[in-house]
């Protein structure tokens, strides 16, 4: 009897716990455009429970049967409040309106998920609107260069888009465009990035405390999502700038059911230069043609099948083209030569969103990503008298191609748990550099193929993570398992991930994180210079996967509901990082070896530091201050005698101040000032003779001298600092808007070093070292329009 009563009581308690809770789920979107809003905050003021929307704008919250007062808020939008009496599972969408940008929004209490609320640390979201308002090189808004202004993220060399995150190299950044990895992220040798900000919805960077759903890279996750396209009306915008012109058009295919967005960007200097160059060459009796441009094309379509199912199709294609053709005609012969280099990415992604039930959301994705580089050079000489032709032709190609599929589940059983789990598969195909040579003249014919065979590898991963809240403690704990098959070699790795947040008094949060990461593909890049001829190669039986372990500790707080402060310290240990062997590059082989693996050495890396970020996101004035103090080391047995040495991009201090101020309704002023310690370099410090000719009286004639570098990277280039400013003048017309953007890059013309060379100074009669800078003061102007 007692047992039966106990069972009944337990059953009733169990039923009480689960029977009286219902789930509210739905989407948060922009009222005017229908764009789904990522990480919008949905909070119940009655139970004090909240949640955020996922990448597709979906949210789900399970609450007790009762009245609920849901407040939905998102940066730059007016909050929306809905009161319902919860007595069953319901679907509830929120459609938010943009706020008046000049108006300070009074946001109180828990209506916005503040930085101290999140268990995730080492992550920064940068609003696309802010990226677009910052002054930029040649007036070209650049997502990656904006990320370089954040703490813990450093630029490589001045003016380039490379990202060195907490001591890691660029290949250790997983750059995702609509969930598809992008292998080459820059145009014009790194001067511009491939991302057209007009087509983007949001950008975030995670530098540590990586959630379990991410894997495959050691140092950062840069998650970039494209806009879906306006579901309601046709709109567009465009610009004409110093270097490129852009146009974006979006609109409904079927109103509130299907939409599209297309945006393109192209440089146009060659349109003007080519006819001029051709004419000038023609006047000299020559024929000369020059091609120099890049373009990006983004396109996306989405279709709402029903309220539980939605399809997306994303496409990106971008290419850099540099080429020339020259023909000179003489009395007895014609000489022709041509050359060029092309590189670019193509990306395709098909996604299906399926809300299985109010608590379970599934996203399935299949993707294609292809990066190729092609270099060509040819020369021919035609003997008109004898009708004979001789010549030389070289073509070099390299690249990487991925086919991938994945499934990601979001499961929200209770307000205190946000569970994500899923699995993915990638097939990589590598072309690590093939050189096709042909030559023909009177005495020989050459036709040969040099380089490395294509190879494939397969990568598989599965993960589970849970974001748990318990009182003042919030934790994101997870496991990521990955496996990699390459040739006959099989690697696998179990990677624990944990992020903790404990809310202290006065709204201060103490945060900590730990993450192990594994990386199976590597980018062979020279420390001297990064080029599109850098090679993506797999781990093999000789080249082990890279590995990292990172710990971080920090505090975070929001002041005056608007100013976010965070201070973090981190330590990162890396193993099996790769570098070219001394004397090696993508060109040629190591003497006596044939495999590309012989060009590479593996070693360890170590980086640690402190980062500070003070960020204001709303109001007439917005911006941030970022400071990083860091150390960054590498150690390879074959380099520097096996002793550890400073990584080339070991910058002790890195500081940025960024601000945007709305002077009036139509005028916006932006400025950024950056400062960083100079890059580490190696220079010859001593020399000795190798070969001498016979001589008398002790004075040898040296005909060969060996220079030696001494300790690697033991010198520093000069520190860099730079001020960029811009002003936007907006004007609203009847049916469209226009803006003039005028600014100056490197306003006070500081010569920030790009590289260093040695030279003999005849005046001083000694060898001097010169720092060469690339980018002097550069004014820019662009005309933008919106309709």
């Amino acid at each position: 009897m007692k047992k039966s009563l106990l069972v009944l009581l337990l059953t009733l308690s169990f039923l009480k716990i689960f029977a009286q809770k219902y789930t509210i789920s739905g989407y948060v979107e922009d009222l005017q455009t229908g764009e789904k809003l990522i990480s919008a905050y949905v909070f119940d003021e009655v139970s004090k429970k909240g949640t955020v929307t996922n990448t597709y704008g979906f949210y789900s919250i399970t609450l007790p049967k009762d009245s609920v007062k849901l407040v939905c808020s998102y940066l730059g939008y007016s909050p929306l409040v809905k009161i319902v009496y919860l007595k069953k599972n319901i679907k509830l969408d929120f459609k938010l309106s943009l706020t008046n940008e000049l108006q300070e929004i009074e946001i109180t209490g828990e209506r916005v998920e503040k930085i101290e609320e999140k268990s995730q640390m080492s992550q920064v979201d940068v609003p696309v609107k802010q990226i677009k308002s910052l002054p930029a090189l040649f007036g070209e808004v650049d997502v990656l260069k904006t990320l370089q202004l954040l703490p813990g993220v450093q630029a490589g060399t001045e003016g380039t888009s490379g990202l060195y995150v907490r001591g890691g190299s660029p290949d250790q950044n997983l750059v995702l465009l609509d969930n598809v990895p992008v292998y080459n992220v820059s145009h014009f040798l790194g001067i511009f990035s491939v991302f057209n900000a007009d087509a983007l919805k949001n950008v975030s960077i995670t530098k540590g405390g990586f959630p379990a759903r991410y894997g495959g890279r050691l140092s950062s996750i840069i998650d970039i999502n494209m806009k879906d396209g306006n579901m309601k009306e046709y709109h567009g915008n465009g610009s004409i700038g110093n270097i490129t012109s852009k146009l974006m058009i979006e609109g409904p295919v079927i109103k509130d059911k299907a939409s599209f967005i297309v945006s393109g960007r192209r440089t146009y200097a060659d349109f003007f230069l080519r006819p001029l160059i051709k004419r000038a060459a023609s006047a000299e009796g020559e024929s000369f043609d020059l091609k120099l441009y890049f373009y990006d094309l983004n396109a996306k379509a989405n279709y709402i099948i029903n309220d539980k199912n939605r399809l997306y199709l994303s496409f990106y294609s971008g290419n850099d083209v540099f080429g020339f053709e020259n023909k000179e005609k003489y009395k007895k012969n014609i000489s022709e030569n041509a050359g060029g280099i092309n590189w670019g990415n193509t990306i395709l992604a098909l996604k299906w969103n399926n809300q299985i039930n109010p608590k379970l959301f599934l996203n399935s994705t299949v993707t294609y990503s292809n990066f190729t580089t092609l270099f060509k050079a040819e020369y021919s000489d035609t003997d008109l008298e004898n009708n004979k032709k001789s010549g030389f032709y070289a073509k070099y190609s390299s690249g990487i191609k991925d086919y991938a599929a994945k499934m990601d589940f979001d499961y929200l059983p209770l307000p205190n748990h946000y569970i994500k789990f899923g699995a993915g598969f990638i097939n990589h195909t590598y072309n690590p550099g093939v050189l096709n040579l042909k030559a023909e003249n009177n005495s020989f014919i050459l036709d040969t193929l040099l380089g490395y065979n294509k190879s494939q590898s397969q990568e598989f991963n599965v993960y589970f993570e849970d974001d748990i809240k318990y009182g003042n403690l919030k934790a994101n704990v997870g496991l990521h398992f990955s496996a990699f098959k390459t040739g006959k070699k099989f690697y696998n790795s179990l990677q624990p991930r944990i992020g903790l947040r404990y809310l202290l008094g006065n709204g201060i949060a103490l945060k900590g994180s730990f993450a192990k990461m594994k990386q199976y593909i590597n980018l062979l890049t020279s420390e001297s210079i990064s080029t599109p001829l850098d090679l993506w190669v797999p781990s093999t039986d000789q080249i082990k996967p890279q590995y990292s372990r990172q710990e971080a500790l920090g505090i975070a707080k929001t002041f005056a509901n608007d100013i976010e402060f965070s201070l973090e310290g981190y330590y990162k240990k890396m193993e099996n990082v790769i570098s070219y062997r001394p004397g090696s590059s993508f060109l040629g082989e190591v003497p006596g070896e044939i495999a590309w693996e012989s060009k590479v050495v593996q070693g360890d890396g170590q980086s640690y530091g402190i980062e500070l970020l003070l960020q204001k996101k709303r109001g007439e004035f917005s911006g941030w201050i970022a400071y990083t103090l860091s150390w960054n080391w590498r150690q390879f047995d074959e380099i520097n005698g096996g002793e550890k040495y400073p990584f080339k991009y070991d910058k002790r201090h890195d500081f940025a101040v960024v601000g945007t101020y709305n002077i009036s309704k139509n005028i916006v002023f932006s400025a950024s000032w950056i400062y960083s310690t100079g890059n580490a370099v190696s220079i010859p410090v001593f020399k000795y003779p190798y070969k001498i000719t016979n001589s008398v009286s002790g004075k040898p004639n040296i005909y060969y001298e060996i220079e030696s570098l001494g300790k690697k990277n033991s010198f520093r280039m000069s520190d860099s600092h730079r001020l960029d400013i811009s002003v936007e003048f907006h004007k609203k017309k009847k049916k469209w808007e226009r803006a003039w953007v005028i600014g100056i890059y490197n306003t006070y013309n500081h010569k920030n070093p790009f590289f260093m060379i040695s030279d003999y100074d005849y005046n001083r009669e000694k060898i001097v070292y010169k720092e060469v800078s690339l980018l002097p003061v550069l004014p820019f102007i662009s005309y933008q329009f919106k309709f």
Partner: protein
Amino acid sequence: MKHIKFIISLLVLIGIFYSCDEDSFTTIKELKLPEHEKKLAVFSKIYGSNCEIFVSHSKSSDDTSNYKLIKANIILRKNNKEFFSFVYPDDMIVGGFISPTIQLPQSVNKGEKYTLEVISDELGTAKASQTVPRIPVITDISYKEKFYIEKYDTLDQLEFKIVDPGNEENFYFFNFRPTTYTIKKYHLYLSTQTDDPIIKSTYRDTENGFIISDKTFDGEKRNITMKLGYYLNSPSTGENVSFDTILINIKGLSKDYYNFLISKIQYDQSGENPFAEPVNIYSNIENGYGLFSIENPELKVLKLK
């Protein structure tokens, strides 16, 4: 916006003003090189009963003074016992010139360990040790005239096998020479090529030879196939040019010598390749820089007629 023309003009002027300077893009960086401690620079090679040597010194990269030869006592020890000694460069002066080589009392033999000591009052003592490598064994030598007949060229084929003993590291160098290379007023130039991807990357212009390690054929026979072509340095007047023997010169190298040669090829190549990682040339001299090496050559005479 009524001021926009003024603003644009001002920006353009700023750009022109600052950008027109000749030195807009360079700054001289005053770098203080660390104080360099001069050390002995020693290059010495023993082959047969010959010892090549020169002794000089290192200096700071920004030092434009001349190098000089360093007077030193040279002691060569065989298996830890003093074998030969002389004063450099005094004992090497012949006919008013400093000879690059000095004769040893006897030839070196496989397995013997030699230590070179260079004792200088000025720069202290530098030292290095080497073990004499084995004499390479080559077999199955064949020669086929006019074997590769291509559209514009005809090349002969020379094939042979290197027999490698297992369980030890061995390194080889080989080149070729027709014994009659000056015929009347012509100079006969022998070109050597190969399609072998491992060997051809090790070609050294200075000796027209190739280097190989036994990493890929330890304990086995390694086939070497060469394409040989003959060119005259002077225009032909129609006289027949022929020769009847080829010298195959193959040497066993010590590991240090092999590492030095490979690093030197890379050093030379990196000077022309802006993308290459910088190279420090291999050195095995203790308390100094340079190389002490021992070769053990084998000369095979291949009679063609």
